[in-house]
């Protein structure tokens, strides 16, 4: 039977609900040899900041039970190089290109967004990283405070008419309040979740493994925590939600849709199975056909 994988998240239409998560898919080009990028619902870029950032000292990665910790520190080329060096490739793609932006102050967020808005076509929306656990001054503090979330969203809303996705941190008392703040600030979509703060210790050396002591936890064990956050958001806000956290299989994707996500992002899994995003598109299509689901959007929030 015919089935449609298309989903609509407010003003953002996706040909299917499979996106790739910021920081795990580079600027797209790195996966060009593994994946037919045009088959994806969309690509979310590595976080872009005002200036290039060299990132945190080593180690930045360590595997821990159930996932991994990272402490990249938003290492990236900066918005100008992004526009000149990375956008040309992205512009050749037919899938949605979402630029993830980050900063250490409201001004930095606004400046990055303004620069991107001035650049030629090729951007289908923005994701605002209000939740990076690895940058002390920035995301970490803003992202947990509903008032800050509201103010930043409001400021950015004034700068762009393109779809504005606010990415929320799970390290908070009440993700519903953060979601409401973003909604009131004018966000079109929420994405949840970024990583939880975690820590690994080398007991022989008696030292933290990561150069920054703590880092962000991602991977398989994040799934059940993320599902709870997505579900809670769905009970609180009216905006569409993009679910993120520990997605590795088709079943994981369907669970997030059922929990209330209109689309999902694949993160850590891309490192281990570089072809996984495209494979999940195929599998989701097969699943809908086998189960006579005319439109994948029927699954969204379809928990009994």
């Amino acid at each position: 039977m015919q089935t449609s994988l298309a989903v609509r998240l407010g003003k953002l239409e996706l040909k299917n609900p499979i996106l790739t998560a910021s920081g795990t898919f580079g600027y797209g080009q790195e996966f060009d040899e593994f994946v037919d990028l045009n088959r994806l619902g969309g690509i979310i870029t590595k976080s872009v900041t005002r200036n290039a950032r060299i990132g945190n000292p080593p180690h930045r990665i360590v595997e821990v039970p159930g996932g991994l910790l990272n402490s990249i520190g938003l290492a990236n080329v900066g918005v100008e190089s992004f526009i000149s060096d990375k956008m040309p490739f992205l512009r050749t793609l037919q899938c949605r290109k979402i630029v993830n932006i980050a900063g250490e102050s409201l001004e930095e967020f606004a400046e990055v967004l303004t620069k991107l808005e001035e650049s030629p076509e090729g951007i289908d929306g923005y994701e605002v990283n209000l939740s990076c656990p690895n940058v002390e001054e920035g995301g970490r503090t803003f992202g947990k405070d509903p008032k800050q979330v509201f103010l930043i969203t409001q400021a950015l809303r004034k700068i762009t008419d393109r779809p504005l996705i606010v990415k929320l941190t799970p390290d908070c008392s009440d993700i519903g309040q953060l979601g409401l703040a973003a909604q009131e600030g004018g966000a079109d979509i929420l994405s949840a979740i970024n990583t939880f703060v975690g820590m690994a210790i080398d007991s022989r050396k008696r030292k933290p493994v990561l150069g920054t002591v703590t880092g962000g936890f991602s991977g398989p064990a994040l799934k059940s925590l993320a599902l709870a956050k997505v579900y809670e958001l769905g009970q609180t806000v009216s905006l569409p939600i993009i679910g993120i956290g520990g997605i590795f299989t088709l079943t994981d994707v369907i669970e997030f849709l059922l929990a209330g996500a209109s689309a999902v992002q694949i993160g850590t899994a891309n490192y281990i199975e570089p072809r996984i995003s495209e494979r999940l598109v195929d599998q989701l299509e097969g699943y809908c056909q086998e189960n006579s689901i005319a439109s994948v959007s029927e699954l969204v929030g379809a928990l009994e």
Partner: protein
Amino acid sequence: MREPGKLLCEAAVIDIKWLNDSYYTLRFHSPEMALRSSPGQFVNLKLSNVKDLLLRRPMSIYRCGKKEGWLEFLLKIVGRGTRTFSHVQPGDEFGLLGPLGRGFDFDDVNDAILVVGGIGIAPLVFLAEEMHARNVNVRFVQGFVSQSEMCCAEELTPFVEELQIATDDGSYGFHGDVVGLLRELIRGKADLTGAEIFACGPNVMMRSLAELCVQENMKAQFSVEAHMACGFGVCVGCPVPLHNRSGYYLACTDGPVFRLGDIDFAD
């Protein structure tokens, strides 16, 4: 060095051999990967259907039968992954992603001294073989903790002019570390200080080797390790400090082989 594109594939183990208590080799049938591989590059390995190892484990290409279509890795048991991998049987499938990274550059090299500590030997056996095939003069200096850890002498002899061994405990060969042995060897020998160093080993060895090379004004290339998540430049998780500490290279795409002077070993 050259990067003719990486492969993402499954391959079966065709042989597993123990070299000592903690070193073993895994040989895979993977003709296409073998063809593309050059010394110093690595492959990211994942045991298919094993869920409790999340990340792939980077392993240097130890030997490579381009004609016969096999690829071999030399592993040392240090943690969960290398232990789990040691329990596989011929026929078990791994996921392979590679060859990754930039290997050694020996296009203009006539005389080479290969210097390794412990498991650092893994990438340098393949290098010795390829250098020999291109008529480079190869001297090989190995360091081990103890005689019981020694390995690969047999594999190396066809390719090297000279093979010298140091053990930390003096149970075999030179009593002391491998850099000490190298210092002895080159002392006053102009032909040797004209050679280029190719090295892999623990950080402390690499640091003291780097100092020696600066003193003796020798060129050198080092294969370094870093914690990795992806292995192909995406996670930005494998920083190697620039010589002046003003920023970082990525071990997986800028390296794992770097030239003396480009990076900083301090800490």
